[in-house]
């Protein structure tokens, strides 16, 4: 299947709206109840600008466009990210996390594609995009 793909080709794109509800839901599902992910007063007391999304929530959703593209979550054999910038989540409304998934490398022998993810949020005022994950790569089996 690698022959049907080209390095640099965008295979999937998606936008996820993260709200405080999303954070509480993730806290419950994952067991990560660090209060910096739901309490403004505690987030501010430890020097943060406000409540942040769990890094693992951002990582978890960022791979979903790849899963939907390949059609089988079991095909993702390796997934890594670097947490570079926090995702601030307002008390009301939401923040949009945008994911663009592009073919980074093709290994035709192993029939594996490395899909590189660009994960950004937009500044609510200026609209400027900020990258929140670095070196976000999913290795997908095409066999």
């Amino acid at each position, binding site marked *: 299947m690698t022959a049907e793909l080209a390095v640099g080709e965008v295979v999937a794109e998606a936008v*996820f709206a993260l709200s405080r509800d*999303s954070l509480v*839901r*993730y806290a*419950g*599902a*994952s*067991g*990560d109840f660090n209060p910096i992910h739901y309490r403004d007063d505690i987030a501010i007391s*430890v020097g943060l600008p406000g409540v942040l999304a769990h*890094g*693992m*929530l951002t*990582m*978890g*959703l960022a*791979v*979903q466009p790849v*899963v*939907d593209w390949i*059609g*089988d*979550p*079991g095909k*993702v*054999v*390796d*997934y*890594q*990210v*670097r*947490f570079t910038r926090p995702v601030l989540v307002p008390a009301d409304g939401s923040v949009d996390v945008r994911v663009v998934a592009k073919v980074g490398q093709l290994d035709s022998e192993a029939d594996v594609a490395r899909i590189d993810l660009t994960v950004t949020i937009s500044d609510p005022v200026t609209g400027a995009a900020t990258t929140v994950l670095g*070196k976000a790569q*999913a290795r997908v089996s095409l066999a």
Partner: protein
Amino acid sequence: MSVNPDLQGRVFPPVAPYLVGREKVREFARAVFATSPLHSDPTAARAAGYADVVAPTTFPVVIQEHTLQQLLAEPGSGIDFARVVHGDQRFTYTRPIVAGDELTAILTVASVKTLGGHSMVTAESAMVDSAGEHVVTAISTLVVRGDE
């Protein structure tokens, strides 16, 4: 206090086996916006060749958390939880996790490095099934901020 360099290479005792439940997989999938029917519908999962619903890619973090608690609870580790920032995360699979798997995780501290006052601890949690076969390894790099 900085992170104790003697932690490098340390292998912790296995944590109690974790039984992957179908409802937990569904709950986690909803939380990470995962909409593939293979996470929620056992019939669809079986049609795709799996024994039961498939866990989302980052699901092993739930089990890894139990192993990291061992590290944070270790007396003399020098790791102050309030100063820990998650730097990197990786999951390397031998096979997907499905509901019904009973996974046992073993934590190894792969490396401890000090960089400009900060310490970087790389923790690898290898998870095996009830037959002892490797399923996935979750690798975290934790950055422990030095004293300001």
